């Protein structure tokens, strides 16, 4: 009988259960995604130069575990809330507490188990898609990449079984301790009244103080490498508790102030403010983890974008030419002619002696050699202006011109089998008398080496050079493009992880916030009906609802952005300028966030209207 009733409940409340179920599946999938990367030690160590990357990922996994725990706990309470009235009725008709609590345990556990299985599949699917799309998009091939990692899978299974069992156990305890009357009236239970007293004022101030303190720890201790792990954990702890208290109390202070001002008297403003001060109490935990997820998504993307954006700039700074082709063949010349946005193409002649490369001085006077002035160039300063030097400057450079020698060194030396002991001489007479055959080197500079078709052509040119000159396989083809290829090998892993994690955190954020917001439709439906009776127009009601949800969305957005702005200096040890990817990442994440807000409002208002008679 009880099983029949449980099935009947699923039939009647399938929409609510679907929201709950979708939330559970997504949280499992994201946990799986993260675990797959975090537990793939070979992948982590092979693809980054950061020694402590494995530990960082373990801390990340614990953090995600905490976030998921809060989320699952909330989802569980939602399930109990959906079911408790029915349990009360069953008990009134004579079902004993033991069988009811067993039923609830079974329901919780079964729902968890099904979400675990589906979530793992979805997680593997997401990992596969995100992994391959990103590697293709970023032009990377990462060694040891896995869609399935046995340790990661076991961690996921164990974690969720433990949490679902705990939830089931707590539900049993709740049913055992709650009397029938309370269960029956559960749906009419009032929301918690917001606190307004002195205690709230104090916790509000403490919240702000803890947040500020967490920023101080991030910028002053973690960023400077002082007791890095201890200070990192301290920063996370301070930040989470600060965010929690800030949402719980500090914002209530602001809302109270607004409510008592004349600003609130117009239209539905007071209603919206009243709704918010109640909501923030009910949302304090969820908004805390949403803030964290927002900061993590934005932070991860900023770091990923940072590497993606800074490598081409670093590469450009490394050489005044994009690629250097020794002894260009017909095919090479054809490929070069297909390059777009070419700033210059120069071909120089040289003669290769055993321990010396001799250049004709006259050609540098006719067609000067590009070089960078030795300025204090930083990543933020961008790419320096290309200078051109004559034979005299090459032979006798002044203090700011000495890099011209390096440019010359980079032209043909690496292709010489004795490259370690080869010198470069610019001398017209020596060039003329040498009987060695004349060789040529062509250098090209393009404005954008990462855009197509340039990237593809440069790749082909590099492959052809490496094939013809075996020393280049280890030394790399000189020029900005060669530097870019090496940088990708070093930083590509981090770039990938940044993007991959950003996707995971963003999906988790979307599922968490939407689930929580939509779980309020039932409570709100009556309120909006009352407003309609009192004389609020449909437009006023929709606007009030959109504003209320907007403010709920803006809170994590604002704190999350501040978190990232103060958190980024922590990456100074592994990045030249951690802020370089911030603007574009912010644009991407905020765009997604706004879209997702619009979607939530549309779904919410549709659900509200569905209840209207």
């Amino acid at each position: 009988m009880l099983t029949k009733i449980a099935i009947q409940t699923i039939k009647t409340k399938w929409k609510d259960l679907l929201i709950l179920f979708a939330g559970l599946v997504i949280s499992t999938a994201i946990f799986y995604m993260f675990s797959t990367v975090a537990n793939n030690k070979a992948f982590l160590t092979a693809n980054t130069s950061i020694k402590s990357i494995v530990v960082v990922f373990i801390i990340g996994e614990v953090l995600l575990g905490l976030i998921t725990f809060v989320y699952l706990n909330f989802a569980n309470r939602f399930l109990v809330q959906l079911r408790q009235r029915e349990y009360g009725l069953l008990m009134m008709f004579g079902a004993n507490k033991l069988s009811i609590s067993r039923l609830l345990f079974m329901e919780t556990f079964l729902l968890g188990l099904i979400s675990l299985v589906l979530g793992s599949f979805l997680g593997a699917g997401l990992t596969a898609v995100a992994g391959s799309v990103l590697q293709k998009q970023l032009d990377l091939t990462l060694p040891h990449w896995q869609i399935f990692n046995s340790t990661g899978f076991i961690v996921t299974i164990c974690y969720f079984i433990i949490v679902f069992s705990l939830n089931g156990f707590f539900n049993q305890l709740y049913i055992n301790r709650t009397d029938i009357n309370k269960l029956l009236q559960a749906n009419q239970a009032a929301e918690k009244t917001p606190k307004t007293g002195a205690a709230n004022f104090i916790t509000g101030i403490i919240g702000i103080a803890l947040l500020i303190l967490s920023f101080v720890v991030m910028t002053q201790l973690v960023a400077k490498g002082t007791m890095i792990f201890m200070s990192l954990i301290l920063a996370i702890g301070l930040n989470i508790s600060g965010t929690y208290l800030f949402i719980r109390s500090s914002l209530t202070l602001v809302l109270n102030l607004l409510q008592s001002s004349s600003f609130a008297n117009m239209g539905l403003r007071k209603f919206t403010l009243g709704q918010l001060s109640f909501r923030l109490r009910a949302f304090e935990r969820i908004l805390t983890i949403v803030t964290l997820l927002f900061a993590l998504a934005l932070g991860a993307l900023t770091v990923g974008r940072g590497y993606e954006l800074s490598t081409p700039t670093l590469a450009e700074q490394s050489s005044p030419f994009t690629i250097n082709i020794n002894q260009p063949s017909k095919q090479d010349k054809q490929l070069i002619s297909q390059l777009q946005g070419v700033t210059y193409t120069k071909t120089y002649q040289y003669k290769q002696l055993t321990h010396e490369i001799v250049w004709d001085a006259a050609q540098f006077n006719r067609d000067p050699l590009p070089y960078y002035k030795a300025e204090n160039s930083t990543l933020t300063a961008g790419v320096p202006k290309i200078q051109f030097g004559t034979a005299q400057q090459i032979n006798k450079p002044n203090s700011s011109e000495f890099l011209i020698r390096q440019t010359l060194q980079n032209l043909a030396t690496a292709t010489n089998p004795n490259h370690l002991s080869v010198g470069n001489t610019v001398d017209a007479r020596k060039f003329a008398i040498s009987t060695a055959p004349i060789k040529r080197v062509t250098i090209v500079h393009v404005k954008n080496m990462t855009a197509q078709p340039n990237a593809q052509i440069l790749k082909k040119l590099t492959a052809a050079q490496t094939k013809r000159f075996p020393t280049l396989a280890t030394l790399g083809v000189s020029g900005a493009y060669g530097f870019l290829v090496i940088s990708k090998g070093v930083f590509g892993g981090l770039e990938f992880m940044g993007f991959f994690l950003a996707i995971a955190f963003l999906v988790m954020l979307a599922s968490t916030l939407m689930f929580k917001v939509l779980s309020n439709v039932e409570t709100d439906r009556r309120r909006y009906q009352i407003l309609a009776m009192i004389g609020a127009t449909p437009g006023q009601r929709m606007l009030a609802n959109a504003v209320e949800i907007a403010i709920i969305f803006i809170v994590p957005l604002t704190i999350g952005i501040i978190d990232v702005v103060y958190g980024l200096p922590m990456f100074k040890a592994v990045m030249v300028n951690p802020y370089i990817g911030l603007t574009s990442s912010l644009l991407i994440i905020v765009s997604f966030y706004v879209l997702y807000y619009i979607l939530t409002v549309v779904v919410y208002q549709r659900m509200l209207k569905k209840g209207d008679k």
Partner: protein
Amino acid sequence: MKNVIDVKNLNLTYNANSQKPFYALKDVNLQVTDGDFVAIMGPSGSGKSSLLNVLASLQAPTNGEVLIDDQNIWQLNANQLAKFRGQKLGFIFQEYNLIESLSVFDNIALPLSLAKAPTATIKAAVNHVATLLHLTEQLNKFPSELSGGQKQRVAAARALVHQPKLIFGDEPTGALDSANAREMMNYLSKINAEQHISILMVTHDGFSASFANKIHFLSDGQIVQTLERGNQSRETFYRAVLDFLGTFEE
């Protein structure tokens, strides 16, 4: 005397196109004069709530005319209807329908805020009705902190604060004990007499109905009988109502 409600040939049919249509209201004609206090009684399923919902502009009729203060309400669009409700009507329901996230003061003030009344006007009006309904001590509390009787008084205050033309009551004493029910009805009589606001109330409780000047009895979607209080005392009228109900419900 001018009519505040004028209902002509009102019909409400559910599943009109099906083989078994259900006629919730059948050719109802009803007039309520300005300043009157009218009750609608009838057994469950007689159409009381349907009639109230249609008159209160919460549910559209199948056909027929509903004029409230000379305005055919079902010719208004959604926005005009909302404004009309906000200006001319007040509501008191059995389950109070207060907004839990607003304080008592803000609950009462809501119709005036919606009408964009100045802050000083709102304060004065809320304090006025709070004094009238003995709620001045409760203004800063939230609905969850009030008793049933107090909640219903807040609902009455909210229905009254913007000086509507007409208050609709849907079983306003349905959730109250007898002492609170009597108190509530006394307040409604006072509002009707002193503020000259017409009241139309649906109830199945003879005691509450005996506070009205006129009672229409509804059965199977039709008005079948009307009792008028005239010069009788409330107690005498109550006995007449009970006598009638004894034969009516048999």
